[in-house]
């Protein structure tokens, strides 16, 4: 399509249910009360000139360009700040307002560079447009007076420039930073003529700016402009697509100039993000064209040999031949595959189909195993389906938010902005997290309760919250009696009321004062609408599944399910975690979460696929790796996943990969896992894919090819060719046909097709005949399973304990600028903000060990050790240390153990007993230690322990 420009109504939509009728330029219109005159006019397709107004921001009324005349009113009110009234008669074009507007524009232009022809925003500048609209023909004030024309440009941000000389001080950027992003990094500095936009008195890079791009998007001039636009020129066409980073799944306009991608701009009509973005989605897409991309298939007989470039045909035939050979020698169960949450639903579906139909077993698993598999288990047990209950918009109706084990401002930033907006409107937040994350206290946000529980004690905490609800008569009896299985509830009630679950007992386990737990429980239970949001700090524990069920219990007991503003909301780590699970990637389930042992379902798949399918569950990822080590599992197909960096106990993973006879990796780069591979099949970036992603709110969004596949093939085509070479042919002409098959065989996807998505934008499953556009809020009248099922959630301490040798607890997570193992973000300018993993350690723990800020340290657990720099912060409590796992050089998962969730084997990343000690130097290739006395410190420390 040509360049897509969404309609800008000038001011936000009013949510009022009352109507007002007025007349604008002789035309009558009825609009919701609270609508601005500017917006009402735009609804009549009458554009009132404006500069400081845009509909993503509250009206401000500073530019005075949008003045109108209203019968019976004095003066010329600004249409952006004037709400409509019944019977109002507005005139938008009169001699009087035209004269004012022209005057205003003259003043603006008298202090604006006249370099339109060479300006990067030429053709996309609202100031330029308004000069034309008001008919500006002269500037009577001249250009010689006091001005800002020589103001400097701030080039510090790697993605955009701030050219102060072009700034008209309309405050749109400042307001976007406040109202949309909620960071408050920008301000207007100075007074009167000296007023100027400032990122807090420093440059953008040094400021608190998080580079979400909201200010750039809001800027009506070239003041804030993407460097890519400066370098490449203005784009001239748009492809609508979906971001491939976190589980928010933001919709973007990929704006191109010819075939060259110039910029990614968040799409206002995208249901997940509604026009907002973060630094990753907005700017960190350069990895798609990074020179490290591998575009030619490769094979090698041994991992000690160099890679050999081969044709697709040769690579596929080699892989198929080896797979057949291995199965003939070691049996059908000796091979398997892993699907990726970074791939589309269609790509994932064909991989699991290949494993089940061509490999002839159910040894397929997904990387969701290591993140949200407990969500699938826990919510299916309690509610009947493996998905979050709400849409993102729901948070706008929440009065209390209970945030557990999630750090949305870093990991799900666009949703965090929605959340912060609601908090600024007065909603309360309770944060249960060992660390003082931003949502505990930051600009205009302060948690009502921070429950800094010890890692590994989540279940004790959720039980104590529920105990308070049950013993203080805070149960929503109407909801429980009407909506839940009462037999299960009574068993649960008896269990949860036991003294062992009381906050007073739990205080000794979690370290959180009982009264704080009780107060938090009361706040949650007594709110009109209380919502729970959680992340991997819930799931990646030995009791991850139990914790998810505990969360569901609490929500049901308080009646916080089945309407806007409430619910149980897993914040998914990767873009298509939900989708990869939906598509039948788990070894025990077909698409739509139906067990492989269900004869009726299996027969449907057998009939559709024309293959005999196995009725028993296959192996999970850790099962496959374990079986490889004992010589029973010999070959693995790995789609877009770097298990040698992302999975726990790296030594164990590498030993398993190294013991296989065939590892096939389909990926963009030669990653850590590919170092153990025998066949490398080049993959496609999200900019080349044609398919769908399903985000954390079950929203199925189209991923459209922005550019032709750099490898010449779509990933699903390669998988289909491999499957054919194995003897099982798939008959797809394009990825739309794959979705058609998914919709045909998966009840919750009924009616979903590319054509339907292209028509309506997106849908949230479950979809059916009655709800072809999906179901934003689930379990409204009844749970998917019928009655809600309370589950007993006994607290079982993790086997991972601190000892004298390993006295600290390590927990891991991710930061805003980097993403997971960093394969994508490390290959972008996001490394400007973070180019290494750091270990956060409390100053008291650091002092005890003689560790200074910025110093190299050795981090050791019972399974391995690594080296990274320390950063001293009281954001972690004493006894707890924290790091990220974005960089292979530090390899945080060398440290993490193979303990896992009892129900799903999701690794216990969040609890590892460790010791930290000064190190002589960093890891190989890193800078040498700055502190000359490190060696002495290391020796001294060794003596002490």
């Amino acid at each position: 399509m040509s360049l897509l420009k969404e309609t800008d109504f000038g001011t936000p939509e009013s949510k009022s249910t009352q109507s007002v009728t007025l007349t604008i330029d002789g035309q009558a219109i009825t609009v919701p009360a609270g609508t601005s005159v500017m917006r009402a006019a735009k609804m009549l397709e009458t554009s009132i000139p404006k500069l400081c107004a845009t509909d993503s921001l509250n009206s401000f009324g500073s530019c005075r360009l949008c003045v109108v005349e209203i019968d019976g009113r004095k003066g010329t009110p600004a249409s952006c700040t004037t709400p409509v009234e019944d019977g109002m008669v507005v005139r938008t074009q009169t001699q009087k307002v035209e004269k004012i507007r022209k005057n205003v524009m003259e003043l603006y232009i008298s202090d604006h560079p006249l370099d339109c022809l060479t300006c990067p925003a030429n053709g996309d500048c609202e100031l330029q447009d308004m000069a034309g609209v008001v008919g500006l023909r002269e500037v009577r004030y001249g250009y010689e007076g006091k001005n800002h024309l020589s103001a400097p440009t701030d080039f510090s941000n790697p993605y955009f420039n701030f050219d102060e000389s072009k700034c008209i001080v309309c405050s749109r950027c400042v307001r976007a930073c406040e109202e949309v992003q909620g960071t408050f990094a920008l301000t207007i500095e100075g007074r009167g003529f000296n007023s100027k936009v400032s990122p807090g008195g420093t440059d953008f890079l040094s400021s608190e700016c998080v580079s979400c791009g909201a200010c750039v998007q809001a800027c009506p001039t070239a003041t804030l402009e993407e460097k890519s636009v400066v370098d490449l020129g203005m784009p001239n066409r748009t492809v609508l697509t979906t971001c491939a980073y976190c589980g928010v799944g933001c919709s973007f306009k990929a704006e191109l100039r010819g075939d060259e991608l110039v910029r990614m701009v968040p799409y206002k009509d995208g249901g997940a993000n509604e026009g907002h973005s973060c630094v990753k989605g907005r700017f960190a897409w350069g990895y798609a064209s990074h020179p490290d991309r591998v575009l030619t298939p490769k094979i090698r007989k041994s991992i000690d040999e160099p890679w050999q470039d081969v044709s697709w045909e040769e690579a596929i035939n080699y892989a198929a031949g080896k797979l057949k050979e291995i199965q003939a020698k070691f049996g059908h169960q000796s091979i398997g595959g892993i699907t990726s949450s970074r791939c589309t639903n269609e790509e994932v579906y064909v991989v699991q189909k290949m494993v089940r139909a061509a490999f002839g077993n159910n040894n397929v698993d997904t990387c969701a195993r290591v993140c949200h598999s407990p969500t699938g288990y826990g919510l299916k047990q309690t509610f009947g389906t493996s998905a979050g209950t709400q849409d993102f918009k729901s948070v706008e109706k929440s009065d209390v938010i209970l945030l557990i084990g999630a750090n949305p401002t870093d990991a799900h930033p666009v949703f965090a902005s929605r959340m912060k907006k609601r908090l600024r409107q007065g909603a309360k937040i309770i944060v249960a997290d060992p660390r003082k994350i931003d949502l505990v206290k930051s600009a205009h946000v302060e948690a009502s309760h921070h429950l800094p529980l010890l890692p590994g004690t989540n279940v004790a905490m959720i039980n104590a919250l529920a105990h308070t609800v049950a013993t203080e008569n805070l149960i929503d009896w109407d909801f429980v009696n009407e909506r839940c299985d009462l037999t299960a509830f009574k068993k649960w009630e008896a269990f949860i009321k036991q003294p062992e679950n009381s906050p007073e007992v739990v205080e000794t386990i979690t370290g959180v004062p009982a009264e704080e737990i009780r107060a938090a429980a009361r706040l949650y239970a007594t709110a009109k609408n209380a919502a729970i949001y959680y992340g991997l700090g819930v799931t990646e524990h030995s009791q991850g599944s139990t914790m998810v069920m505990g969360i569901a219990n609490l929500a049901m007991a308080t009646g916080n399910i089945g309407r806007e503003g409430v619910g149980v909301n897993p914040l998914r780590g990767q873009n298509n975690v939900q989708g990869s699970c939906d598509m039948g990637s788990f070894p025990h389930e077909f698409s739509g979460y139906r067990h492989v042992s269900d004869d009726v379902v299996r027969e449907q798949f057998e009939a559709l696929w024309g293959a005999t399918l196995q009725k028993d569950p296959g192996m999970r990822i850790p099962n496959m790796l374990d079986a490889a080590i004992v010589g029973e599992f010999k070959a693995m197909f790995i789609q877009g996943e770097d298990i040698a960096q992302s999975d726990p106990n790296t030594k164990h993973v590498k030993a398993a990969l190294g013991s296989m006879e065939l590892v096939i990796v389909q990926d963009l780069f030669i990653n850590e896992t590919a170092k153990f591979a025998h066949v490398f099949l080049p993959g496609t970036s999200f900019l080349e894919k044609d398919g769908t992603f399903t985000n954390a709110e079950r929203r199925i969004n189209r991923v459209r090819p922005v550019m032709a596949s750099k490898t010449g093939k779509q990933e699903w085509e390669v998988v289909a060719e491999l499957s054919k070479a194995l003897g099982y042919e798939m008959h797809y002409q394009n990825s739309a046909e794959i979705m058609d098959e998914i919709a045909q065989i998966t009840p919750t996807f009924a009616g979903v097709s590319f054509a339907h998505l292209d028509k309506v934008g997106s849908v949230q499953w479950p979809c059916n005949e009655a709800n072809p556009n999906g179901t934003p809020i689930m379990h409204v009248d009844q749970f998917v399973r019928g009655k809600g099922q309370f589950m007993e959630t006994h607290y079982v301490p993790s086997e991972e304990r601190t000892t004298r040798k390993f006295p600290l607890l390590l927990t891991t997570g991710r930061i805003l600028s980097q993403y997971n193992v960093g394969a994508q973000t490390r290959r972008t300018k996001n490394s400007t903000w973070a180019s290494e993993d750091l270990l956060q350690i409390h100053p008291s723990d650091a002092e005890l060990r003689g560790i200074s800020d910025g110093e190299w340290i050795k981090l050791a657990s019972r399974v391995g050790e690594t080296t990274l720099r320390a950063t001293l912060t009281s954001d972690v409590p004493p006894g707890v240390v924290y790091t990220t796992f974005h960089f292979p050089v530090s390899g945080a998962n060398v440290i993490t153990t193979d303990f896992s969730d009892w129900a799903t084997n999701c690794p216990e990343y969040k609890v590892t007993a460790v010791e930290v000690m000064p190190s002589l130097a960093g890891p190989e290739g890193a800078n040498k230690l700055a502190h000359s006395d490190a060696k002495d410190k290391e020796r001294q420390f060794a003596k002490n322990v």
Partner: protein
Amino acid sequence: MSEASVKRMANQIAANLKNRSDASEAISSHLKSFWTPQMLSELKGLTEASPQDFDELIVEIAASL
């Protein structure tokens, strides 16, 4: 699968479900739903060979697999 993994996983399942009023049924159902036939077979063999390494409920359930 390694013996150590089978042992650890089975005992962990028991530890998390044994306090439930429907413990036996819950453990049995869980194993049948998520474990491969070979893992179940290995469990059966290991519980017969060294029952002392397993939770009593696991031994009991494995015998009936």
